């Protein structure tokens, strides 16, 4: 998506560029754990750990754990970006 840049300060633009990059990174992780890995469920099911077929395990627990970890990480990373450009709350 192209963004109009008129009237936006250079600092804000740089902040938003970095924010956008972080957004795409996390959407890619989300897409991998939400969809890509489950395409391979039948193959992953051949690997069994503690009784869990791996394909089943990823959909039942693995991806969920990834989402939770990802969200705490995202909150931290975005806050760091906001601080870097001086736009974080005090």
């Amino acid at each position: 998506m192209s963004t109009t840049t008129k009237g936006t300060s250079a600092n804000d633009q740089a902040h938003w560029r970095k924010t956008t990059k972080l957004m795409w990174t996390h959407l890619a992780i989300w897409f991998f754990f939400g969809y890509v890995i489950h395409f391979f469920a039948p193959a992953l099911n051949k690997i069994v750990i503690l009784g869990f077929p791996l394909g089943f395990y990823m959909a039942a627990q693995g991806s969920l754990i990834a989402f939770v970890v990802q969200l705490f990480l995202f909150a931290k990373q975005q806050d760091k970006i906001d601080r870097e450009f001086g736009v974080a709350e005090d």
Partner: protein
Amino acid sequence: MATQTSNDGSFLQNLGKIYGLYTGGFLAFVVLLAILEQMGVPNRVLGYLFVFFTIAVYAIIGVLSRTAQVSEYYVAGRKVPALYNGMATGADWMSAASFVGMAGTLFLLGYDGLAWVLGWTGGYVLVSVLVGPYLRKFGAYTVPDFMSFRFGGNFARFLAVIVLVCCSFTYVTAQIFGTGIIASRFLGMQFEVAVFVGLAGILLCSMLGGMRAVTWTQIAQYIVLIVAYLTPIIILSTKKYGIPIPELTYGQAIADITAREQQLLKDGLATAANLKPHIQPWLNYTQLNFFAIILCMMVGTASLPHILMRYFTTPSVREARQSVAWSLFFIFLLYFSAPAYAAFSKLEVYTNIIGRSVTDIRPWMFTWGELGLIQVCGKNAATLDAIVAACKAIAGHPGVVRLQDFAINTDVIVLSTPEIAGLPYVVSGLVAAGGLAAALSTADGLLLAIANALSHDIYYKMIDPNAPTVKRLTVARILLVVVAVAAAATAATRPADILAMVGWAFSLAMAGNFPALVMGIWWKRATTAGAIAGIIGGFGIAILYLVVTRYFPGFGVAYLGMSSLTTPTGAPLVDLAKAMAAPNAMDTFVGAAHPLASKVGWFGITNIAAGLIGMPVGFALIYIVSLMGKEPSKEMQAFIDEIRKPRGRTVLQEKD
């Protein structure tokens, strides 16, 4: 409350202590009831004590949190800490469909049911990354507030209210329905009466204090529901495998189920046609619909107004983001345990029901059979005689329960697990209290979202902008009661399957809200005309798809080029030529049993995933129509810059 502000200060500082004490008190109450049970107090009395005690506590919190301030009523004064808001969101999120229905769905569908587990968790990534924190910075009371500000006023607001009411009302009806099932089972009330009793409980929590009351009760409800959900399976896991971590031990149960499935086939108790191996993907949904459901539930999560508005209550944008992470953590605790429930009860059913003599049916089933929720040999399993007679009537029946003889409603799995496992009744009562907490808390949040949209967006913003505070809040409360009664009346007619209704709500929210919200924040060039075209086009086509496939399928086939959905193996679900030649083919408002209802569509997409058809249309229309017009004004672009930065005042400043 004159001293509200100073009270609030000490209240917020002591949240940990207050809710810690509350949790301790609740556990002590459960232990007390367990002792009473040992002393011979009858089950029905225990059930009443559980239900009434917990509802009374919610009502007390609701009354204590009553408020006469507008910002307290709509967004709890924006001072709910991230962790507690996460807990409240968890309760708001996990509905009767999650608590009661999820494990049952996994029981029936095996791997394919995990589409719901994935869809109802992954969406929070979209909430945090794309939408939630920006709406918090904007400073709205409702989602339509944002639409109106960003997209040129009251017409966009009105469209957003329509989307909100359509999806929330569908959803709340399913919740009240769930409340009715639980209350009728545990209090022995008539279903219709139980629906209205549950409603009274919901209103007590939300009417006086709005968002403020709902927030503090939802935290209390989360604690009850998570304790109730985890207790039975932790006991079961310890009993069976010696380790109190069911999420770890159910791997063994899954291995046992797979072995037992082979055994059932060998013994002739099941056939290759009716036995669907628990771990094998895409036996119930086609691969396309499996992923379509995941996508619709995820995007729907990031579009549902009653969830988005929870993040309006945090003190800062930073805490809004942290709060989304906490929300998902608290939701995760239940969702990653649900497959354990499904595995344990499936193993119980496969070993202790299937393969047993018909005359040896375990008596716990009769209470569910009476409600029509368990059937053996095609008849409600209400009494032993009824079952024996029903099985005798089947030619060549071996006198042993076979897989095809046993039918269980998915809503029963969680509620009956304690009884199946032979745990004391107090555990069943606990589970019922948890299910009730789940249904009540979600219904509260939804009713509040609808009533707020009607009172704030329609009445205050569009009809009478000069209305004084007292009048605004009175209107909000009256509307809350009206909407609640309407939803209960709809629920009392038992419309359908809870899961399908909830799925529709997500699809509608996704098609109507998501494109406009995301483009409004992430693309400055998005214009009013584009957004309005996108909402009308996307939402319109989704609701058309849903209504036509469900209620006018013959019309869809004859005039809209719809074809039959397919089974996972690629065979059509219905023989279209035959069904269209039948005299009832062109019937309108058809029932769920109609041969074509919900079985036709475009591209083989089930109507639960109608949002998948609406959303791309919405995005495309916003993009194309926006580029055809002039770019938004300089002021608007400056406002969007403001939304993107956490620092500074909220863009929208509401007067109190």
